[in-house]
């Protein structure tokens, strides 16, 4: 059973739909006690960084999320804003992030010729898997995914980068560290490619590597 965290930020319906399409059982949860019992968690989200953190705080979810990520070490997948919230902080806001990944969230900044690139980075783009990249197993060399974002992660430790995408410059499109996974794109809206990423997450057995 996959628990999808419903904290009032974005498209939880789509995530459930895609999991259902893959034949995986999933449920929406927003109660901290229920999150405490989750054995696999998806942290979705679209929108502004501070709003996302504020929602987590208000629902009393932050302590239990830390528990899940650091002590219980259950697999957690952050999607889009959910992935950004796993970082230390974001240029988009003042709130500190969950701080599970040694990364900052920065805005796309282009100079010279690149300045004409539109922001947000929106549309279908390719992800080049880096390292073991368990989420991209079996996807081939050039899987494509749907992106909509103006900010992206910048990891302090390159080993945390699981996938890169080129938009002006190569940026971190996916992260993996032990039991923690994050994707900047929307697997729930990326046809069969996204289905495969969610399936890979759903099929993960355990994550014993140190976080």
């Amino acid at each position: 059973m996959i628990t999808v965290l419903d904290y009032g930020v974005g498209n939880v319906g789509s995530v459930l739909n895609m999991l259902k399409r893959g034949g995986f059982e999933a449920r929406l949860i927003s109660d901290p006690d229920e999150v405490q019992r989750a054995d696999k968690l998806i942290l979705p989200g679209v929108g502004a960084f501070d709003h996302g953190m504020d929602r987590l705080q208000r629902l009393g979810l932050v302590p239990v999320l830390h528990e899940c990520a650091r002590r219980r070490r259950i697999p957690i997948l952050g999607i889009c804003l959910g992935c950004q919230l796993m970082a230390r902080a974001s240029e988009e806001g003042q709130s500190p992030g969950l701080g599970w990944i040694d990364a900052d969230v920065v805005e796309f900044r282009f100079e010279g010729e690149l300045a004409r690139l539109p922001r947000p980075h929106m549309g279908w783009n390719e992800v080049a898997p880096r390292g073991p990249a368990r989420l991209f197993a079996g996807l081939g060399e050039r899987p494509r995914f749907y992106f909509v974002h103006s900010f992206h992660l910048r990891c302090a430790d390159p080993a945390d980068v699981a996938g890169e995408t080129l938009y002006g410059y190569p940026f971190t499109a996916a992260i993996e560290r032990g039991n923690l996974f994050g994707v900047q794109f929307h697997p729930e809206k990326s046809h069969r490619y996204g289905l495969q990423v969610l399936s890979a997450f759903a099929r993960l057995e355990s994550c014993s590597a140190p976080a």
Partner: protein
Amino acid sequence: MLRPRLIPVLLLQGAGLVKTRRFKNPIYVGDPINVVRIFNDKEVDEIVVLDIAATAPGRGPDFDLVGRLTGEAFMPLCYGGGVRSLDTMRKLFRLGVEKVCLNTAAHDDPELVRRASREFGRQSVVVSIDVKRRFFGRREVMLEGGRRRTRLDPAEFARSVESAGAGELLLNAIDRDGTREGYDLDLLERVVAQVGLPVILCGGAGELAHFRAALARGAAACAAGSMFVFQPRTGAVLITYPDISCWEGTPL
């Protein structure tokens, strides 16, 4: 490399899908759920669903239908029609909509655009700008499905919604709608020169060359209705979607 996006625009009227010509004479195309399923199989980049009946006073989105559409759409779905409040938007996002499209409300209530972009992120807030051609190449922004005049210049209006927080523009040339004569590229260039937002161009696409021309002149994406739902010569309903995966994307 960012691939160019081709976006079918589906018009809802009641529970049916229709296609208009110059925003008039809606012709029944089919059942929206079926059409979305077909587009799903064809792995379309994105779809825009506009409920042209939801704009009327006292009406709003048919949430039940929107929920059934998003349940079938494994690609991003943008919904527009009768969206006037943050509460409505919250409901739509919960149903699995990726983006909400504002038209009349973006003009009458710029504060709504501002608050929506603050709450949902500006990438989720699309403003559609319907444009009618006037004398001497002048163009005017129209509201309420092309029925209400504003006397506003499209490029100026585009700049004001950008500063209000819109994340994307759906630029629609009313005079080209359903004609397949090609996009209004002059309109595109005027708007693109004024804003940094991605602009989806709509109205008039009839062949692949029209897409190429629009992308070359700065459109971030190309939208079309007729081209994806009607056969060119007979006008019979035929749901199609071209494969342009070999086209060059943003070369950077």
